[in-house]
């Protein structure tokens, strides 16, 4: 019987029929989705912190409004994703608990510090660019609520990358100090950005199953290559350079070759040793703990009103 259900399920997936929350699904599919969607949601809200740093220091009122709107969008994206995960039978509080206790992961890129205004540009262009590269195929993910959340996210995300590029472009056309600021930001954000696509395909054992379930549509290395190709061209418009001396066009492959990624650094940051892991997690925990009395009071007030209504 179980086998049969699994065949029916895989058959639906193969025919591109979306799976909805109440449909039968293998437990492992459910768990994989919960893990992936909640990680993604955590990345959005932890990702608010490095950029949030600069809202109060944005150099013009226009930039300030844009940055605030962008970081706020990330809260929205986290919310859409938590909601999608909640349809799989886990609560947002449970997911928070996993984040706060360190059991759940989030994108490692947010464990790097934002040291200058140009970092807002680099994050928009590179980090959001890499995120979009990952996210666009997810709009066709086999799980309906996830795919729908991603459609909404991608629609909103498109201005994020543009505003980042615009920041870098302005800096690259500015004075010497600004140009240096922009180059320095690229030097620091480039490698972590291309690590965002995750380990190489031969080191990524879950990819095959995820692709069979059509949660993933492309492998990590495919997406990474696509991203490198695009950035290698766009950086020319900025008149800046990417910090990789091996970055060269390979005519035979029809792609850019790039230098070796420091996977040791990647795994160190994933396991908690990035420059900001502790700060990020503490900031999230503090917000959550400081907000406990607020959430409790609102619940208590709502209860009170409900019982008053019943009496009346």
């Amino acid at each position, binding site marked *: 019987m179980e086998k049969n259900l699994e065949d029916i399920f895989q058959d639906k997936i193969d025919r591109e029929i979306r799976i909805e929350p109440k449909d039968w699904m293998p437990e492992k599919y459910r768990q994989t989705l919960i893990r992936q969607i909640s990680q993604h949601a955590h990345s959005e*809200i932890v990702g*608010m*912190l490095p950029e*949030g740093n600069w*809202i*109060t*220091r*944005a*150099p*013009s*009122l*226009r*930039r*300030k*409004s844009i940055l*605030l*709107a962008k*970081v*706020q969008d990330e*809260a*929205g994206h*986290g*919310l859409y994703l*938590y909601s999608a995960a909640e349809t799989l039978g886990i609560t947002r509080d449970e997911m928070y608990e996993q984040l706060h206790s360190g059991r759940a992961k989030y994108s490692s890129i947010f464990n790097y510090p934002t040291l200058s*205004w140009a970092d807002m540009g680099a994050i928009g262009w590179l980090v959001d660019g890499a995120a979009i590269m990952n996210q666009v195929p997810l709009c066709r993910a086999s799980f309906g609520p996830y795919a729908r959340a991603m459609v909404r996210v991608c629609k909103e995300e498109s201005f994020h990358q543009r505003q980042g590029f615009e*920041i870098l472009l*302005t*800096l690259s056309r*500015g*004075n010497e*100090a*600004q140009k240096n600021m922009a180059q320095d930001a690229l030097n620091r954000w480039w490698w972590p950005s291309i690590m965002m696509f995750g380990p190489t395909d031969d080191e990524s054992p879950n990819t095959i199953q995820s692709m069979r379930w059509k949660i993933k549509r492309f492998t990590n290395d495919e997406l990474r290559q696509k991203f490198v190709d695009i950035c290698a061209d766009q950086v020319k418009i900025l008149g800046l350079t990417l910090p990789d001396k091996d970055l060269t066009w390979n005519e035979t492959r029809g792609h850019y070759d790039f230098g070796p990624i420091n996977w040791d650094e990647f795994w160190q940051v994933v396991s908690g040793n990035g420059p900001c892991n502790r700060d990020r997690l503490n*900031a999230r925990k*503090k*917000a959550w703990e*400081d*907000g*406990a*009395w*607020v*959430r*409790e*009071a*609102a619940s*208590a*007030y709502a209860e*009170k009103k409900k019982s008053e209504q019943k009496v009346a």
Partner: protein
Amino acid sequence: MADQITDTTKSRLIHYATHLGDNALILGHRNSEWCGHGPVLEQDIAISNIALDLLGQARNFYQYAAELTGNGATEDTLAYLRDVPDFKNTLIAELPNGDWAQTVLRQFFFSAYQYYLYRQLQKSGDAQLAAIAEKAWKEVSYHLRWSSEWVIRLGDGTEESHERMNRALDLLWTYTGDMFIPEAYETEVFAVDPARVKADWEQKIKQVLEEATLTVPENTWTQSGGKKGIHSEHLGYILAEMQFLQRAYPGAAW
């Protein structure tokens, strides 16, 4: 209108628009500090929306003030290149966020003030001020509703939230009077004399605090000086942070 008026009137109009912009910018800046740190995701988004509305209002008022000023003034020279004594915002806007109780109560006092002020400013003889006020009034109506509901919810929530609201009330109350002390630029025909909105404000405050099971403090002593440029110590830190890039790289475009 600006063309036919006397120099004093024009200068007061500039001051007035700048003052209204300062109010909105400084509180918007404070609210934006919450982004990423709110008590629940939905409210993180809500307070950022309010901050964005206020930033938008500030930009509208500054752009108008800059246009009247000429000489290369822009919204950014006003926001980024003036020092503490030049800022004419009311004191309550610059106070620290404190906890969520302090933030929502500050918002409530301020939004109620803006609500009645903008309602009248829409009838200003100065068309530009009236137009800005008309757009902003809709935004502020929502801020007032949002903040009133939070004041009521927390005042009448749990013992702890009630206690925190009382503490916030105790701190903020002495800064409310500053909003109603009129400066010269607020007594011109194009402006709304804040004394004229005081009764409405007081009534609204009384009604909401009562529903929140809180008591309007009897203390009538008030801190003052914001509109003249005499501020609390807090504003200097806000400006140091906000203006850092513009000060460190003079003349750069961003």
